[in-house]
């Protein structure tokens, strides 16, 4: 499979902070790739370095084998970035901004105008085309940023926290839209705080922490490699004191039961035995694999696996 993006030992130093500590990984063409990590992990710095908004201290980044520094004209045509911050330009309307942005990429004419019209239509911005961007709601500004990123028809779309601060409806709409773009052949790179979002959309994820990659794998593999499964137990006597070996496995206490984290290799009979020894009156037991959020928390907590 051809590579859409290659990060090779990317380092970014600020005065008193090393934001990226030699990050290396590849994103395959056509992937829906999730870049996850807590605040300050270096996700945006990495994405901005790829897009040309940040100059890396050392290392290199290639987009479809073109270097983002020496071949920046080619790489910027291949990339479309939806930045995290909601940006507005008080001097121009949405349509004017899209036309100017097309011009920066050397695109003009009837075909480009038709594409701008299609983008406005697809992102439900047609009736606001002549509105000034500073007068728009947060959700609309987000959609404008997506239109701006797509105006030059990039092969790789990078979305930096695209659903942060948007309502549930718009979040679902954006999910559908990005899925559609992915099906059309775009490579999608997504950073998000919503791990449910990454789990639903991304076929491959990298988890970053403190400027380094902590884990990188196919989403399903990452989930299945997690050493625990989770037991939800409903009981009639939730106030009972759990015996020590069982209490150690408790991750959540609910009004009518508990959630236990259990080693996948451990015996279920043994766990049920511990429940019996604690005197729990069990009415229901269900077992599930870890969610991406649990994998993420496990990896990013101090001393995590």
């Amino acid at each position: 499979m051809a590579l859409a993006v290659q990060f090779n030992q990317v380092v970014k130093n600020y005065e008193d902070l090393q934001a990226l500590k030699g990050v290396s990984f590849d994103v395959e063409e056509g992937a829906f790739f999730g870049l996850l990590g807590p605040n300050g992990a270096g996700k945006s710095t990495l994405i901005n370095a790829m897009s040309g908004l940040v100059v890396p201290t050392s290392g290199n980044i290639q987009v479809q084998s073109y270097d983002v520094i020496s071949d920046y004209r080619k790489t910027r045509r291949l990339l479309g970035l939806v930045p995290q911050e909601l940006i507005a330009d008080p001097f121009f309307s949405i349509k004017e901004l899209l036309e100017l942005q097309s011009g920066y990429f050397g695109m003009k004419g009837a075909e480009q105008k038709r594409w701008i019209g299609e983008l406005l239509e697809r992102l439900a911005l047609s009736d606001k085309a002549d509105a000034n961007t500073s007068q728009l709601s947060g959700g609309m500004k987000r959609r404008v940023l997506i239109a701006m990123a797509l105006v030059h028809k990039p092969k790789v779309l990078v979305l930096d926290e695209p659903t942060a601060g948007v309502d549930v409806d718009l979040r679902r709409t954006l999910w559908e839209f990005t899925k559609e773009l992915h099906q059309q052949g775009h490579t999608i790179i997504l950073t998000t705080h919503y791990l449910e979002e990454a789990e639903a959309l991304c076929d491959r994820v990298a988890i970053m922490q403190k400027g380094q990659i902590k884990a990188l794998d196919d989403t399903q593999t990452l989930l299945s490699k997690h050493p625990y499964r989770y037991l939800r137990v409903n009981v009639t006597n939730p106030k009972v004191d759990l015996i020590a070996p069982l209490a150690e496995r408790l991750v959540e206490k609910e009004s009518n039961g508990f959630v236990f984290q259990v080693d996948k290799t451990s015996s279920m009979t043994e766990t049920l035995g511990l429940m019996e020894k604690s005197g729990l009156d069990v009415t229901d037991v269900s077992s599930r694999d870890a969610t991406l959020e649990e994998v993420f928390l496990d990896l990013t907590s101090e001393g995590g696996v």
Partner: protein
Amino acid sequence: MFNFTGFWALFIKEVRRFYSVLVQTVFAPVVSTLLYLLVFGQVIASQIETYSGLSYSQFLIPGLVMMAILQNAFANTSSSLIQSKMHGNLTFVLLSPISPFEFYLAFVAASIVRGLAVGLGILVVGAIWFDLTWLEPLWIILFAILSAAMMGGLGMLAGIVSEKYDHLAAFQNFIIMPLTFLSGVFYSIHALPEFWQQASHFNPFFYMVDGFRYGFFQQSDVSIYLSLTVTTVFVVLVSAINLILLNKGVKIRQ
């Protein structure tokens, strides 16, 4: 290869930016500069020595025109750049395949347009009121464009290094304003004491005003070729510094 469409789009964007607030960016500077003409031209005219055969107002108009060109060309790039940095919309340009040279050229070209628009406004009003001569129009045009380019470049430099409006205001009020006021806009340097005459030669704006005024009257404090050389050297120097900073992404691509 030069991305002409990209350059042109950015140039048009910059021109439309100041055109959309024309009262603030063109009409207001024209009116405030004409107030200088009214006050200085009428009130203190008799106390200031100029060139022979010229009234003080005739002498003053080219100086005021050049001062307006310098200040407005500077204001255009510097304010546009810092506003774009503050609002974050500079990101749109930085994500595009526009090269540092095309970026620089587009911003400076727009600053020349604004500088010339303000200068022309003052010149038209001045020419209606007073009897102006245009003995060397090519020198007038050349100095107007070169000086606006130099100040557009200086404005970009200020916009790049400034991290907030306060920094820009310091640049404008402590460097640009004193240098323009002390550049011979209001007087011939021969009317100054010896020390200040010599000091004026270290002010690059003096050569721009002097060369521009030569185009009107064929009279100047120093040789027109010296003024042309100094102005050109500063255009090249300021452009080179800007291009180095833009290529490295200093304070822009952090």
